[in-house]
C-alpha cells in the first residue's frame, strides 16, 4: 500500500503566522484530496512571546488522531521549537532559520538541537521573505513553500488557497504572499532532499458526497445552518468564539439573525426568549460562560424551552487555561444549575460528529423541549479534519415539534400537560388561542406557579422521563462499539475528543495481538445505561481515559452502574497521549478485571 501518512508540525511565536501557515497547508492538501486532521496550540496573548504550534497529519484515509511523532518540524521561533525537536522521527526533517537577525547565545539556535537521526534543513527564511516581498511578514509563507517544494506537493493548490485567504486584503497582499510562497517553494525544491518524508503519487478519490475541510467549530456551524438555526446570541470566549464569528457571516445570508450581547448572561437569556418565541435558537460558550449561564439554563429546563448551548471546554476551573484543552466541564454541563436541572448533554468525538450533533441537537431540543448542551472541547473545536457531507443533503429533521392539537371549544391550553411520553405539545406566540405564561417558579400543567409536593414530584418526573426517549432518538447513535466483538481483554469506554486517541491506541494494541474494543459514548445525559452495561459485560477490564483530573465520566459510569472501571484521568494541557492509553491497555491485558476491582 502506498498510503501517505505525513505529520507536519509548525512551531512559532504568536504573531509569526504559525496558525495561518497551518491553515493554508491543510486547505491546500485537502483540496488535493488528502484527508487531514489538524490541531493548533496557541497562547492567550495575541502578540508577545507565547508559543503556537500547528500540527497536521495528512493521510490518504481519514485518521483518528495526531501521531506521537511528526515527520517534519518547522521552526519559526527557535526558543519555542527547541523543546519539540524530539518529536520528529528518525530521517524526518527539521526546518529552521539559518540567518537569524540577532545573535543568539550558544544553544539557542535550532541547529544545535537536531538529533543525529534527523535531517536539518537550515535556510534563510527571513532573507527570502524580504527579497520576495520586501518584508519579513511572509516568513510563514516562505516556510510553507519550502515544505511544499521539499515534500513534492504541487504549488497550484497552495497559490489558489493563498489567493482566497488574502483576497480581502487586495491583490497586492495576495501577490506578496504568493511571491513569498514561491520563493520558499523554489528553495525547497532546490534543496537536496535527504529526509524520507514524501507524498506518494495519489489519485483524488471519487467520493460519495462532498469532502470539505472543517474545524470542529466550523462543523458545528455547518450543522446549525443545515438544521436551519434562526437566531444566535453570543459573547466572545475562547475557544467557542469562532462559532459566533462564522455564524455572523453565515446567518444573515440566510435571512437569520445573530446578536452579540453584552455578556453570557444576556446571551443565554435571549436564546431562551427566542426559543420561547418558536425560533431555533442557540448560543455558544466555554466553561466560564457556562457558569454565567447556569441560572438561565435552569430557567430553560423549568420552562421546557428548546434551546441549544454549545460548550467548548478549556482548562479550568475559573479562567483556567483558556487556550488549553480539557474535558473537565462534564459535571458542570450535567449538573451545573441549582435544582434538578435535567437536560440533554451530547458530546461528539470527531469533527464529523460535531456536524451531526449540532444538527441533531435542534431536533432533540424541539422534540423533548429541553436545553441541549453539545459538549465540545478546545481540541475538537480547533482541530481540522476532512469531512464527508452526504450527497443526499442534510440528514436533519427541520421541524421536530410535537404537533399541536387543535383545541376543543372552551378547552384551556395546558402548556405543561402531563402526557405519556412527558412531552407536552408546545405553543409559541402567534399560535391562536394558546396564550400562556412561562416562569421560573415551579408550576402546574397550565404553567401557573404551584409549589405543592405532588405537583413538584409530577413535574420533576415529567422533566426526567421525557428525556429517556432521547436514548432511542432516530438516526442517532448514542453509543458505538469498535474493534473486537464478543469477549475482550480490555474495553475502552470514552467520550468526546479523547475517543480518537483511544481508537488509535486500540488499533495499535490489536496490532500487538491484544483482543480489545472501544466504545464511544455520545450521549451523556440521559445516560445510556443499557448499552454501556452490555459492553462492560464483554470486557475483562474497562478503561476510561479522559482529560480531567477527577475522572468525571468514570465517576458517572461507576455511580450509575456500580461497576468497577480503570480510570485514566490526566490533565496534560493537551490531548491524551496515545501511548499512555496503549500502556494502560497493555497493562490491563495482563491482569483480570477482578484483580483491579480489589
Amino acid at each position, binding site marked *: 500500500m502506498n498510503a501517505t501518512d505525513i505529520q507536519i508540525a509548525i512551531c512559532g511565536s504568536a504573531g509569526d503566522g504559525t496558525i495561518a501557515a497551518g491553515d493554508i497547508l491543510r486547505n491546500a492538501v485537502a483540496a488535493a484530496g488528502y484527508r487531514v486532521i489538524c490541531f493548533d496550540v496557541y497562547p492567550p496573548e495575541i502578540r508577545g512571546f507565547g508559543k503556537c504550534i500547528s500540527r497536521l497529519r495528512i493521510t490518504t484515509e481519514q485518521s483518528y488522531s495526531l501521531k506521537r511523532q511528526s515527520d517534519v518540524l518547522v521552526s519559526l521561533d527557535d526558543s519555542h521549537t527547541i523543546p519539540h525537536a524530539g518529536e520528529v522521527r*528518525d530521517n524526518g526533517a527539521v526546518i529552521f*532559520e*539559518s*540567518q*537569524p537577525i*540577532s*545573535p*543568539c*547565545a*550558544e*544553544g*539557542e*539556535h535550532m*541547529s*544545535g538541537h*537536531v*538529533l*543525529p*537521526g534527523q*535531517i*536539518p*534543513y*537550515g535556510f534563510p527564511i527571513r532573507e527570502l521573505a524580504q527579497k520576495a516581498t520586501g518584508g519579513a511578514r511572509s516568513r510563514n509563507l516562505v516556510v510553507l513553500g519550502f515544505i511544499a517544494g521539499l515534500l513534492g506537493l504541487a504549488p497550484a493548490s497552495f497559490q489558489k488557497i493563498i489567493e482566497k485567504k488574502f483576497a480581502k486584503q487586495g491583490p497586492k497582499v495576495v501577490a506578496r504572499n504568493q511571491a513569498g510562497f514561491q520563493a520558499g517553494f523554489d528553495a525547497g525544491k532546490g534543496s*537536496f532532499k*535527504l529526509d524520507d518524508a514524501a507524498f506518494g503519487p495519489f489519485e483524488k478519490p471519487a467520493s460519495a458526497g462532498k469532502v470539505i475541510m472543517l474545524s470542529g467549530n466550523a462543523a458545528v456551524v455547518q450543522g446549525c445552518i443545515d438544521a436551519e438555526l434562526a437566531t444566535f446570541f453570543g459573547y466572545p470566549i475562547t475557544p467557542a468564539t469562532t462559532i459566533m464569528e462564522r455564524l455572523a457571516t453565515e446567518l444573515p445570508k440566510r435571512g437569520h439573525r445573530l446578536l452579540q450581547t453584552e455578556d453570557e448572561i444576556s446571551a443565554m437569556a435571549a436564546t431562551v426568549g427566542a426559543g420561547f418565541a418558536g425560533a431555533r435558537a442557540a448560543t455558544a460558550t466555554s466553561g466560564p460562560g457556562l457558569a454565567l449561564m447556569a441560572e438561565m439554563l435552569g430557567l430553560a429546563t423549568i420552562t421546557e424551552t428548546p434551546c441549544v448551548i454549545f460548550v467548548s471546554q478549556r482548562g479550568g476551573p475559573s479562567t483556567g487555561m483558556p487556550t488549553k484543552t480539557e474535558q473537565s466541564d462534564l459535571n458542570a454541563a450535567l449538573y451545573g444549575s441549582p435544582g434538578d436541572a435535567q437536560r440533554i448533554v451530547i458530546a461528539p468525538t470527531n469533527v464529523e460528529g460535531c456536524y451531526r450533533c449540532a444538527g441533531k441537537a435542534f431536533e432533540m431540543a424541539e422534540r423533548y423541549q429541553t436545553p441541549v448542551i453539545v459538549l465540545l472541547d478546545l481540541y475538537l473545536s480547533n482541530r481540522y479534519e476532512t469531512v464527508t457531507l452526504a450527497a443526499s443533503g442534510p440528514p436533519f429533521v427541520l421541524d421536530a415539534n410535537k404537533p399541536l392539537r387543535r383545541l376543543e371549544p372552551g378547552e384551556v391550553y395546558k402548556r405543561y400537560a402531563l402526557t405519556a411520553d412527558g412531552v407536552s405539545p408546545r405553543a409559541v406566540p402567534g399560535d391562536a388561542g394558546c396564550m400562556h405564561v412561562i416562569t421560573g417558579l415551579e408550576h402546574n400543567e397550565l404553567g401557573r406557579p404551584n409549589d405543592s409536593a405532588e405537583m413538584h414530584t409530577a413535574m420533576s418526573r415529567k422533566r426526567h422521563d421525557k428525556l429517556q426517549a432521547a436514548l432511542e432518538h432516530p438516526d442517532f447513535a448514542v453509543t458505538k462499539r469498535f474493534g473486537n466483538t464478543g469477549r475482550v481483554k480490555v474495553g475502552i469506554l470514552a467520550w468526546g475528543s479523547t475517543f480518537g486517541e483511544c481508537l488509535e491506541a486500540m488499533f495499535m494494541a490489536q496490532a500487538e495481538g491484544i483482543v480489545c474494543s472501544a466504545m464511544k459514548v455520545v450521549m451523556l445525559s440521559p445516560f445510556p445505561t443499557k448499552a454501556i452495561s452490555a459492553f462492560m459485560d464483554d470486557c475483562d477490564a474497562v478503561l476510561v481515559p479522559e482529560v480531567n483530573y477527577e475522572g468525571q465520566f468514570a465517576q458517572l459510569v461507576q455511580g450509575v452502574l456500580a461497576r468497577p472501571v480503570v480510570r485514566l484521568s490526566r490533565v496534560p494541557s493537551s490531548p491524551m497521549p496515545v501511548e499512555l492509553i496503549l500502556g494502560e491497555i497493555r497493562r490491563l491485558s495482563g491482569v483480570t478485571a477482578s484483580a483491579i476491582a480489589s
Partner: protein
Amino acid sequence: MNASASSAQGPRRYVIIGNGVAGNQAAELLRERDPDSRITILTNSRLLFYNRYLLPQLFKGHQSWHAFLANPPEYYVQRRIEVRRDCRVVSVDTRNKQVKLAHNEPIGYDALLVATGGRSHLPEDLADCRSLFHHFGTYEAAVTTRKALPDNGTVVMLGGDMIGLDLARTLLAVSCRVILVTHETTFWPHKLTAEERADALAALEKMGIELIDGDARGGVTSVEAGAPGLPARRVVFRQGGDLYGDVVMPFYGLTPLVEFMVGTGTDIERGLLVNTTLRTSDPSIYAAGDVCQIWSEQDHAYRFYYGYKNVRAMGAVAAINMTGGHEHFATTQEETLGRDGQGHIDSPFWACE
C-alpha cells in the same frame, strides 16, 4: 552570552570543525581519552559522517545516503558526540575561544580541531564558468552529477587528479566515455618526473581514457552550455578547437578550506600551518587532514599529506595531543603511483578500508 568554556570548571569542551575522516577519528579518540568532556562536531553538511571514498559507487546504481554512513545515528548518541549539522563556521575568535557560526551563534571551546579538508580547486581563469561545472566532492554533488549524466554519456575531466581518476575508473566500468584534458595537476597529489608522467598517461589511454594534451592546446579558456541538439557542455581551448561532453568536471586538486581562519592570527600559507604534533600557532587550535600543512623536518618545508590513512592518523594524533599526549605525526603512506596486474595505474591514495 559569553559561551566560552572555561577549563577550570566543568568538563573540557572540544570543538571539531569538519565532519570527515579526520574529525570523526579525532572525536572517537577524544571520547575514549576524556570520557567526561563535551565534544561537538560542526559541519556544513546536512548528513552525518559518510565515506566519501566510496562515492564512485553511486555511478554503479542508485544508493541512498544511508548506505554511505560510516556510523549509525546511535553511535553519536552513545558516545555523546554532538554533531551540529547545517552549520557554517564564519570565523574563530581566538581571544575569547569561540567559534562563530553563520547564524550568529558562538560556540565556546577549550580546544579546537580544524578538520575541514579541501574543496576542489578551480583555477582563477575558469572562475567565470563556475556554474557550468559538475562536482564530486559531496554526496549531493555526486548525485547531481549522476543525474546529469545520461547512460553511456561523456564526461570531460579537466586536470585529472587522483580523485578524478578514481571516478574515471568507475565511469569506464559503466560504459561512459571519459575525456581527460591534461594539466600539470594530472595525477595530483603524486609528483611525477616527466618520464613517469608520460608512462602513466600511456597507461590511462590503455584503460580507455581519451587524452587531450591540455598544454599543447593552450589550456581550457572557457566552458559553455552546449548548443541545442549537442551534449550539454562545450569546452573551448586557448589555441583553438573545442570538444563536447554531457558533464565537465574540474579535478585540479584540492584547495584547503581555511577562509574562516583568515584574520584569526593563526598561521596560514595555503593550509593551516602546524608542527608535527598538529598544533597550529595558536596553542588551543589543532588541525588535521587535508586542511593542514605539516612541518616536515625532512623536507624543511610545510607540506600536505593526503590519503585516507594519513588523514585518519592525523585525526588520531590531534586527539591524543589535545588531551595532553605528545605524539608526532609521521606518514606511513606510500606515495608512488603504482600499477596493478593489468598494467593499469594504481594509487595508494585510492586505498580505503
